[in-house]
């Protein structure tokens, strides 16, 4: 039995917001794959749960007329992986989705829960960082749009104010169109494992030059992060082994890896240098560039 004191089901987003405003102790539960595990570990006692899992409007994935991609917070990882729009427009996000957990977990875990949980290892986070995704947060006082880089405040800490609910992610057309991308999850096991490092790279190429590169990393610091220095260097560089090597080296500068039982700091830094190059190589090809030998 779970240590649950109260349980409410919200039928609409506005009802969920109303209930949250009335009782700030309510804990939102979506797929429950983080919440229920934390309860078993005794992290939440006598929880008062507000279930949002039946809010179907929050599970949609769609492309607006202006090209903006909308990914509902309740979209599950299986749904994202199988979605034809995501597969066509942002395949790196589909890759990230299928790298997460195992099938039964993907069938129920939501992308909103993955981000609101605040873990640096969240498999969807590095790609959403590379995509400059923004989050729509709704509360009784209105809605705000927050860039994902500002949403993460620290390990397990996100900028979700009391009474707020994450309804959807938005990706602007200029942040995915024309980009090639690739996500590499590095973990000790192929499935059912938390990432030792997550690397998501998006890039644009013209002729033999990198016109834009974005590098999102997970588990390279207390929160997911972007490798700004490497990205700025990359802009306008000719595609070569040497360029990639330099990008890999510069990427390490943005990290703040630490030693944990999964891997040492030095090992993680080595992985950053190496895997950023590998992910970029694939991303270049997907962006229409030539394959580097």
């Amino acid at each position, binding site marked *: *039995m*779970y*240590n*649950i*004191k*109260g*349980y409410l*089901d919200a039928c609409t987003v506005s009802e969920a917001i109303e209930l949250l405003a009335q009782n700030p102790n309510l804990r939102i539960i979506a797929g*429950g*794959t983080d919440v*229920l*595990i934390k309860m*078993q570990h005794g992290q939440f006692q006598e929880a008062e749960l507000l*279930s949002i*899992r039946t809010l179907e409007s929050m599970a949609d994935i769609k492309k607006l007329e202006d090209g903006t991609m909308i990914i509902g917070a309740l979209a599950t990882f299986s749904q994202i992986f199988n979605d034809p729009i995501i597969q066509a427009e942002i395949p790196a996000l589909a890759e990230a989705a*299928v790298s997460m*957990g*195992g*099938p*039964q*977990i993907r*069938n*129920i875990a939501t992308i909103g829960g993955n981000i609101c949980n605040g873990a640096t290892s969240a498999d969807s986070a590095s790609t959403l960082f590379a995509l400059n995704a923004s989050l729509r947060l709704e509360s009784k006082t209105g809605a705000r749009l927050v860039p994902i880089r500002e949403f993460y405040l620290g390990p397990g800490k996100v900028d979700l104010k009391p009474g707020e609910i994450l309804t959807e992610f938005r990706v602007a057309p200029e942040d995915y169109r024309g980009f090639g991308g690739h996500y590499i999850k590095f973990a000790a096991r*192929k*499935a*059912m494992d938390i990432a030792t490092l997550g690397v998501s790279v998006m890039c644009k190429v013209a002729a033999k030059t990198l016109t834009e590169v974005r590098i999102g990393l997970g588990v390279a610091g207390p929160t997911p992060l972007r490798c700004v220095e490497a990205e700025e260097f990359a802009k306008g560089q000719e595609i070569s082994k040497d360029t990639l090597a330099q990008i890999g080296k510069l990427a390490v500068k943005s990290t703040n890896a630490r030693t944990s039982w999964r891997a040492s700091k030095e090992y993680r830094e080595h992985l950053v240098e190496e895997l950023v190059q590998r992910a970029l190589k694939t991303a270049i090809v997907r962006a229409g560039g030539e394959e580097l030998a």
Partner: protein
Amino acid sequence: MLKKISFTVNGKALSLEIDIRESLLEVLRTRLGFTGVKKGCGVGECGACTVLIDGTPIDSCIYLAVWAEGKSITTIEGVASKDGELSKVQQAFVEEGAIQCGFCTPGLVLTTTALAESGKEYTREELKRELSGHFCRCTGYNNILKAAEKSLKPEEHQCACGHHGEK
């Protein structure tokens, strides 16, 4: 706190009062006696507790029983036909020797059943991926994979003409 829920298990409609603290695993095993739903880790890692909810495999240990409202649930007890004839998937597991202690088997059979019913085709790598949410401590995964592949093969043509296997 109690809550009344209505759902079907293996085709049978049920209505019962459950405690909001209960997992679906607990309700199925202890309240309803479906002991084919196994409890391994209790934290979503091993897949022993897998059931199909509206045809989709989920780990019932981390699924609250209240969420089952209105759902159609299949446990291993509902896979064979009423007169006890094994399903194609079960038969394949027997034929390939994909079972030792059998603890992981209900979950694996259910996930494989969902794959078979999806009508999609899977490569060997994709099958491995789709079965990766199940831990088996005994057999090694080779025979399990073979059984899954056999389960997904289209029915062989069998008729009096004698051209067995040809279409």
